[in-house]
């Protein structure tokens, strides 16, 4: 579970649309190209605090909105989460799956003027794999062993594991390229140098970050405005006031904030579908009665997800038991039909009896102090009580809650998961031994092989089929993650904006944004 996903319904719900996914479905009106204000400034009110502007050393998803405009990635994902070219023009996984070859585009440069070429790619991978402070080594170390430069534009990744996930994986942090000249800078986390559309002109860390669009950026059609400011506004009322007073341009909104924004004369864009960001409860399978598969399965069936979505999210959180939303390639239709996504308290009671717990049991969940988590916890508490399980709620701040769970001191954690550009990140974290969200190391002997199978090919259909098998295994195992629902993202904006795109895997839709004069 994200360390601060908690502190961030934010990152996921409020910035879900910064990073490549497809919650498409926005106001599709277009402005007359002659009426566009390419000199405009966008001021984005963000509720979460970034940890670092070094993409390889950052520790939270809160960084991603800013990183996305500073650092272009090797690949990108479209609104539905499928890989598309970005700094790499093309890529290929060889037949035996031993190497993965990237051909870089020829017209991209870093903001310091250094060309984006094959040696730059190698320098970045070498750093990710060898830097003791790298926080993302684990995302690629099981896949990439070494990197060879074949010519100025061609890079060969020598694989130590299946490489089919690389096209989507390289659309996130591991694919963010830092200028080789800046890789050793001790203050890279404050003075970033990337190949993205914007350079940071000034910052007040934790408070405000000011960006200017590069004139020499390779994609003239992207980010059709001149200046961008991220204001960190922890208080929801502050963000809304700022927007209504015209001091900011846009901000993420959830639930009643949408009505408030609309009532204040602002535009509200809402994604047409769910994102990979989800509300969930994580269980430590080594504590309480969670070692019993039937208990985990019973809890999954005891949750009335429809009610949670309707009552707590005004419908803006699509009910679902599996970790991937509908419309995303890793989503399993078979699992939807399997019954594991149902609300079935009778079957839950049967499973508890099978587990030798006909009278239920008691456990304690760590709940971050943000109201949405407490609300989720209270509804789940009632659902579980209906089948005889007594869930005690212990409210604490997000950092403490996360700390207690990952170090094995909490039975369960109520929180949010932000997703990512590749579904394997979740599998690694939640279903594999040693995963950050899996302190009980719950897994099955088949899980590792099924996981490898999901990355055997870059073909989306093949990967999709492999994920269906993996999810079937996960639910047969009784996952230690109880998914509640997937967020539907909304943003409130000033009236002169259009073409804000929503991405299924998260991220802001700033790249396509139009602002009229």
């Amino acid at each position: 579970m994200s360390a601060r996903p908690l502190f961030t319904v934010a990152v996921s719900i409020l910035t879900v649309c910064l990073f490549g996914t497809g919650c498409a479905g926005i106001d599709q009106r277009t402005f007359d190209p002659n009426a566009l204000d390419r000199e405009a400034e966008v001021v984005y009110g963000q509720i979460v605090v970034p940890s670092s502007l070094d993409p390889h050393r950052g520790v939270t998803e809160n960084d991603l909105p800013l990183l996305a405009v500073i650092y272009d990635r090797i690949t990108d994902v479209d609104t539905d989460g499928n890989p598309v070219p970005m700094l790499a023009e093309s890529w290929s996984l060889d037949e035996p799956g031993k190497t993965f070859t990237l051909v870089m585009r020829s017209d991209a440069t870093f903001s310091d003027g250094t060309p984006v070429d094959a040696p730059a790619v190698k320098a970045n991978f070498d750093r990710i794999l060898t830097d003791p402070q790298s926080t993302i080594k684990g995302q690629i170390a099981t896949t990439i062993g070494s990197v060879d430069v074949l010519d100025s534009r061609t890079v060969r990744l020598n694989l130590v594991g299946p490489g089919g996930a690389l096209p989507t994986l390289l659309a996130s942090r591991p694919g963010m390229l830092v200028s080789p000249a800046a890789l050793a800078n001790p203050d890279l986390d404050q003075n970033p140098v990337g190949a993205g559309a914007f350079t940071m002109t000034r910052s007040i860390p934790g408070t405000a970050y000011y960006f200017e669009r590069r004139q020499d950026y390779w994609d003239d059609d992207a980010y059709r405005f001149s200046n961008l400011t991220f204001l960190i506004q922890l208080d929801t009322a502050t963000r809304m006031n700022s927007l209504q007073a015209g001091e900011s341009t846009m901000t993420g909104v959830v639930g009643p904030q949408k009505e408030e924004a609309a009532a204040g004369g602002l535009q509200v864009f809402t994604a047409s579908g769910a994102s990979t960001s989800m509300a969930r409860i994580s269980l430590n399978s080594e504590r309480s009665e969670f070692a019993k598969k039937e208990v985990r399965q019973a809890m999954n069936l005891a949750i009335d997800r429809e009610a949670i979505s309707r009552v707590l999210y005004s419908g803006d959180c699509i009910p679902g038991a599996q970790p991937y939303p509908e419309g995303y390639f890793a989503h399993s239709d078979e699992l939807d039909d399997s019954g594991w996504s149902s609300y079935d308290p009778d079957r839950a009671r049967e499973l508890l009896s099978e587990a030798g717990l006909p009278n239920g049991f008691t456990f304690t969940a760590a709940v971050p102090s943000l109201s949405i988590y407490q609300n989720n916890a209270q509804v789940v508490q009632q659902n579980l009580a209906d089948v005889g399980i007594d869930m005690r709620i212990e409210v604490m701040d997000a950092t403490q809650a996360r700390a207690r769970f990952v170090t094995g001191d909490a039975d369960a954690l109520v929180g949010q998961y932000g997703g990512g550009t590749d579904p394997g990140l979740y599998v690694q974290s939640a279903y594999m031994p040693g995963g950050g969200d899996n302190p009980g190391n719950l897994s099955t002997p088949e899980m590792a092989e099924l996981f490898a199978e999901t990355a055997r090919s870059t073909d989306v259909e093949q990967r999709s089929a492999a994920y269906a098998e993996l999810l079937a295994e996960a639910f047969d195992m009784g996952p230690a993650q109880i998914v509640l629902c997937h967020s539907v993202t909304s943003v409130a904006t000033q009236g002169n904006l259009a073409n804000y795109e929503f991405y299924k895997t998260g991220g802001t839709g700033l790249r396509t944004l139009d602002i009229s004069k």
Partner: protein
Amino acid sequence: MLIFMVKRILAAIPVLFIVTILSFSMIHLIPGDAAVVAAGDAATAEQIAATRSQLGLDENIVVQYFGWMGNLLTGDLGTSLLSSHRNIDAILEALPVTLSLAFVALTWSLVVGVLAGVFAGLRRGTWIDRTLTGLTTLGISMPSFWLGLLFVTFFSLQLRLFPATGYSPLSDGFFAWFAHLALPAFALGTVTAAEIARQARAGVIDVLERDYIRTATAKGLPRWKVVVKHTAKNAAIPVVTVFGLQAAALVGGAVIIEQVFGMPGLGSVALKAILERDFPVIQAFVVVITLFVLLINLAVDISYAYFNPKVRQA
């Protein structure tokens, strides 16, 4: 007077030292773990342990304290656990915002509080006195953050007179600076103004009943002279006391108000650091705020000595 001031400054040093020890201890008692934050969203327990060791968080707390204190004595306030940002830079960036906010809030509270208190005291028992006393009760009762939200709704969103959020440095012009500070400062200073008004009223009423005031009035001195020359200085002592206490308390209020108005002050720095268990930043914040409070107390003591010579002799 000089000896008095030197004594007071010397007495502040052990206080600062004790505060650093207490705050260091308390910060480490807060549940939660900076290593969890620093290790990343998907870190395992092993990676967190490695990060803890790397950051020196597994050292004995006494060792950590003396290491930090040693750096402090050389003027080094340290660096954030989570970034390369030096604490001194973070504080220097944020300090002008909080000082501006505090300055405007205290000025507003002093002017309004003294005027209202003196006026009410001079009109004791009249409807004016009752009205002002009622208003002070209201002012003390209202949380500054709530008042701030009301101000934003009315003055920013409805009347469009002031900005709703943010801060503009003085270098961008006085009016922009003041416009951004007006609402948060008025919200923050209202409780202090009400408290000062009550003390000023009580002080004025108390002094006006003294024999020397009766004598001065009987001698035929004009009313304004009696008030300004004989009443003001003596009635000021309780006002100075409450002003000093409120100025120190105002720092805490500023943390909240800065969030309400999205101001990049020390409050924002502190809140972020607390959320992330960034101990070096919290410690630096505590040191700076302690110094700030000690300076206020020193100023109050000196004011006492000015208003009451007996204090100097003591």
